[in-house]
């Protein structure tokens, strides 16, 4: 960068009273130490917030899992070490709950992604009035779980619900109290609730696919399906991957719709992990077991996300 013809720059050492910038008294080490200190200083506020609200509670929860909650309040909790972890993980209630959660994730995530992507592709056309459809498709992002639950509670109502009427289940036992249909019904609510968000994500990603690439593919002799699979979808893959990871984590933590629609019933058929945890913590006041469940849920999500990154990210194409 320096101009070889320029006059020599006077060094700081040559001028008394000035200290040189750059490698100073402590040499390169001193400099990197100063930079590191400054760096840590900058992240300190964020670290403090995370520490108080995330790291401390996490550690505290793990420790809580080592203590058995006494059967009556005000008795001292008893340290049982890992045995509580072992007993909870091997219990039938936990395993059944975990299986239901897996089913719930399998019902909601792939279908939700496919629907969101499908709607985004449909709405990604230059048509008059398409804005109306885009608004409708993204509208559920503005509805809360409670609103979604109330809407579907009414639709599924055995006396007045439209869905019950269509499914020929009017008058009889409600869909939500049917052991086979309850979990799929709750899944439908969840898919509907998440559709707006997925739609917006996919629409934004679709806008990022250059028209020219699709035109080039068309001229190359590629039909609509071929173009979608070979050009559009690979370019959307980062978004699809993101939506999959976030959607899976979200599905593992779905609580509101289950609490409002079925309370885990009928006979535990919608008792997913997070609801089971909630019951242990706030219905049965068993903080020990609840803490174990929290830690287990955390570990499951951690492993699952790791697996997703490991196996699906390979198929993801980032950037140009």
């Amino acid at each position, binding site marked *: 960068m320096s101009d070889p013809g320029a006059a020599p720059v006077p060094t700081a050492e040559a001028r008394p009273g000035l200290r040189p910038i750059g490698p100073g008294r402590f040499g390169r080490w001193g400099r990197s130490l100063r930079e590191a200190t400054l760096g840590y200083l900058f992240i300190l506020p964020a670290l403090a917030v995370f520490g108080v609200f995330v790291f401390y509670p996490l550690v505290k929860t793990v420790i809580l899992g080592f203590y058995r909650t006494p059967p009556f309040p005000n008795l001292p909790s008893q340290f049982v070490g890992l045995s509580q972890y072992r007993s909870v993980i091997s219990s039938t209630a936990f395993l059944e709950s975990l299986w239901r959660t897996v089913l719930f994730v399998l019902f909601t995530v792939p279908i939700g992604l496919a629907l969101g992507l499908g709607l985004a592709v449909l709405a990604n056309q230059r048509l008059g009035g398409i804005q109306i459809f885009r608004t409708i498709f993204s509208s559920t992002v503005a509805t809360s779980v409670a609103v979604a639950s109330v809407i579907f509670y009414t639709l599924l109502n055995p006396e007045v619900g439209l869905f019950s009427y269509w499914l020929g289940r009017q008058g009889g036992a409600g869909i939500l109290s049917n052991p086979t249909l309850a979990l799929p019904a709750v899944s439908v609510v969840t898919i509907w609730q998440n559709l707006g968000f997925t739609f917006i994500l996919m629409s934004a990603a679709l806008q990022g696919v250059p028209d020219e690439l699709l035109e080039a593919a*068309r*001229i*190359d002799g590629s039909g609509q399906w*071929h173009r979608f699979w*070979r050009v559009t979808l690979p370019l959307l893959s980062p978004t699809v991957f993101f939506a999959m990871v976030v959607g899976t984590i979200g599905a593992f933590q779905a609580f509101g719709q289950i609490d409002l629609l079925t309370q885990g019933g009928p006979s535990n058929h919608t008792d997913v992990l997070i609801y089971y945890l909630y019951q242990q913590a706030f219905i049965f006041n068993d903080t020990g077991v609840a803490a174990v469940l929290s830690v287990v849920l955390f570990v499951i999500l951690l492993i699952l996300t790791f697996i997703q990154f490991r196996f699906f990210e390979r198929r993801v194409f980032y950037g140009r």
Partner: protein
Amino acid sequence: MPLDGVRFEVPRSASVGLEGVTKRYGDATAVDTMTLEIGAGEFLVLLGPSGCGKTTALRLVAGLEEPTTGLIRIDGEVVNDIDAKDRDVAMVFQSYALYPHLTVRRNIEFPLRARHVAAEDRSRLIAEVSTSLQIADLLDRRPAEISGGQRQRVALARAIVRQPRVFLMDEPLSNLDAQLRVEMRAELVELHERLGTTILYVTHDQVEAMTMGDRIAIMERGVLQQVGIPQEVHDRPANAFVAGFIGSPPMNILRGALATTGGAGDMQVVVAGGGIPLPDPLAAVTRRRGLTSLIVGVRPEHVVIDPGGTLSASVMMVEALGHENHVACRLEGGKLIMVRLATGEPIPRPGERVMLSFPGGRLQLFDPVTEVRLDV
């Protein structure tokens, strides 16, 4: 030469025809009743400034746009209702439009896969084309990992590998640096000679047009201005627009009133700062048509700095190109006039006042209203 490997079993080429083709977007007319016939195997360059409708015309032939009215034919067959994917034409885009997620090999293979070409034929064709275009060592890289010039070759390879009836090229060289552009010009011409496939080539660069095209079609504001071989377009521009667009630097176009002192041979076009004398045959044309004003075109090489000249101007800038020098002079009215100095001629300094003369009266005359060239 690098293209030795490409040899198609059957040379394929088809004629392309536009018959009264118009394309409107709302109130804007991008292409206005365009009629153009491109012969099978011809290299036709569609030339014009940006926004003149040339790319739209190309996209109409490709099938990426539908004409508002008019017919498009390929090989004599009307293709208005045939989808782009079935027109059997290949296109090279200005941005190359390579699939960023695919390797070079898969990019070149894409049109073959889309057409269900058998695997062994695919690998043979890819090997041939990539060797001839000198990109065989890049086959496993992604577009982001190769240079602009290499991307341009990949885009060409993807077009060639299909052995289409027609190549459509949309400013394919405009993203290359100057030196590479000159090289690729020669390679494209050679490619055309070797393959014999019809090429419709869009550019705004008149040097590309002059050096590459069998014929040039010049467009402005959606209207086809002139179609002809390069020399003809250069020497006999159909109108003032074509005259002012072709040539490097292009022809000077001046507008002025006609004046005479009554004697024979003293007719001149009066412009700010003096006049341009019209020699007899040209003066006769204006008299015959009863014109009172005129548009005059004069090529920079036909203007001379001469103390005895008839038009005064001040030197604004001198472009020294080494082998020749261009002098930009400003007339009193503010209009620029370019002068090309012959080798060895003294170079004026910027700011200097000079007189210009027009030896031999090598002028082109254009109608002041229609701007159409007046034949002598």
